[in-house]
């Protein structure tokens, strides 16, 4: 087997992990399963593509992609998600699922209708490949992985060492307990909706360095993020990162060796089996 395949899988997996972190944190924070997550990423991607088309350059496009996805996350949190937050328990999860499914159709429908052939493609570096320890890696992949690793590091530092990050984890652990120590879960949720949007936008940027982000890629991004989130354990950021890397490698190897249809089925089966055998996910402990 070509070691480059595994490296590709690792790089793709890191990106998947980053995409899934946003989804898993939102779920952990208050039972919001955001089925429009991939579409938010694509929204950022298409905004970035528009900026590129206007010849404003790649850095501006990347910033625009992240900022617009972040803004969309905040808008959703402050608008249609508000009635959802009023519900509790499984009722809230179900409603969030149905409403964000609706949102995903709106974003998908509008983008494909208005910009059917638009796609974000960022050609970084000279476009060629470089040799790293004897493995050929495209420059785009190198950039994408560098950005993703920095972003993952930033997310870990934020969650682990900042007071806001600690507040986020406290809400995930016990929402009532968090309120008792003065944490407002609604504020935390807004912060995470924004963060999750920004990470989705960043995912679109890094993704576009190796393959185009088209206006219709939203569904597949959402599904991949959902699979990674489930395998990592709903609500576990570390689990999402680990599952992302793991499934990224499985994805790359299986696609290269077996074929893409079977690969999709393997990934879906991984999610289904996780729920059946270990519902808390890879790192979770069943409470």
């Amino acid at each position, binding site marked *: 087997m070509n070691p480059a395949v595994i490296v590709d899988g690792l790089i793709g997996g890191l990106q998947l992990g980053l995409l899934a972190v946003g989804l898993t944190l939102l779920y952990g924070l208050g039972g919001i*399963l955001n089925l429009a997550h991939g579409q938010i990423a694509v929204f950022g991607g298409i905004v970035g593509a528009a900026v590129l088309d206007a010849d404003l350059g790649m850095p501006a496009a990347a910033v625009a992609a992240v900022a617009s996805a972040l803004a969309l996350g905040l808008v959703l949190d402050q608008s249609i998600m508000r009635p959802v937050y009023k519900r509790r328990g499984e009722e809230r999860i179900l409603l969030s699922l149905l409403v964000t499914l609706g949102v995903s*159709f709106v974003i998908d429908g509008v983008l494909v209708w208005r910009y059917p052939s638009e796609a974000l493609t960022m050609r970084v570096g000279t476009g060629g490949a470089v040799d790293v320890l004897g493995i050929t890696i495209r420059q785009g992949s190198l950039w994408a992985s560098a950005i993703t690793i920095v972003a993952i590091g930033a997310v870990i530092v934020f969650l682990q060492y900042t007071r806001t990050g600690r507040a986020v984890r406290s809400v995930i652990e016990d929402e009532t307990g968090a309120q008792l120590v003065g944490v407002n879960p609604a504020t935390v949720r807004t912060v995470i909706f924004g963060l999750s949007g920004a990470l989705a936008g960043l995912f679109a940027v890094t993704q576009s360095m190796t393959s185009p982000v088209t206006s219709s890629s939203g569904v597949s991004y959402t599904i991949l993020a959902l699979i990674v989130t489930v395998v990592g354990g709903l609500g576990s950021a570390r689990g999402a990162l680990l599952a992302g890397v793991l499934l990224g490698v499985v994805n790359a190897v299986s696609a290269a060796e077996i074929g893409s249809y079977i690969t999709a089925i393997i990934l879906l089966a991984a999610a289904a089996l996780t*729920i059946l055998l270990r519902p808390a996910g890879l790192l979770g402990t069943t409470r």
Partner: protein
Amino acid sequence: MTAALSTVDATPTRRPPWLAYAPIAVIGVLSLIVPLVVGDSRTWMGVATSGLLFACYATAFNVIFGSTGQLFLCLGALAGVAGYATPILAEDVGLPLVVALLIATALSAGLGALFSWISVRRSLGVIFTGIVTLTFSLGFGNLLLGQRDLTGGETGLRIATGADTWLRELVPVYLLFLVLLLAYLGLFQWLQRSHFGWAFRALRDDPVAAELAGIDVARYRIWAGGIGSAMLGLAGGLWAVTEGFVSPTTFAFGEVDVETLVILAFGGIGTLVGPVIGALALTVIDELLRDAGQLRVAVFGVILITLFLGFRRGVGPALADMFRRILPTSLVDRFT
């Protein structure tokens, strides 16, 4: 539960039992107008028959989700199992059509019952049941694409069985699906009024008392999953034979499951006539949006959001009520 159901159920002893089935008869009679008016228009009969098919899907989903709260997100896949198995059994294996259809329906039923069984055994709850069945949905779609020899892959499968018979004529096929829908509605209403329906209402009203009264919830859930899936399978199999063509799109999540959700959001989940009203509304909307292309998807999205957030009186609160009562683990119940 919405008003339509509770008025039917509230006084079952005082009213003659046949009255509960009267709405079904009314639907049947009204539906006969369609072929009388547009009976020779291929377009309009096609639209109307497809509306009946979706009303059938929605009634089946009502049995699974509306009655027992199991969120199956694989309606299209369950219909598709029979939709593909019927022609494959009839043509590649050489079974008579009716036998093929029955086996295919049983296949769907078995799968649905299996999902229910898993969901009950692992006490998955709404969300995990939803995700597991969704992965099945997507996996099934990929399987259809991958097993090109058997399914024709992306291009689909042409079905010779039933060609040049009444199964391909406009009005008879319409009537076939009308009879199917009326039978489904009758079955739904019968289930609601049977021990089965009583058990689930008891469960909603007071989960603890219901369990104490010895209601075997698990068994009912599995039955509901099996019966509902059989309904999906039979409808899907019949559709395959009468259309003469199936493709992955015919049974895709984005087509079947989403439209069924929109239909029930419109008509009211768990109600007898909800699927019919919803299917009618959806058919009209679909026609209005025929030239809108991708914008149609966006409009569906707006409808879903609007309806589920409860701007239309009845649906949102009904859903909420239903869940508050169905789920014993719900936070609301902790204090009562």
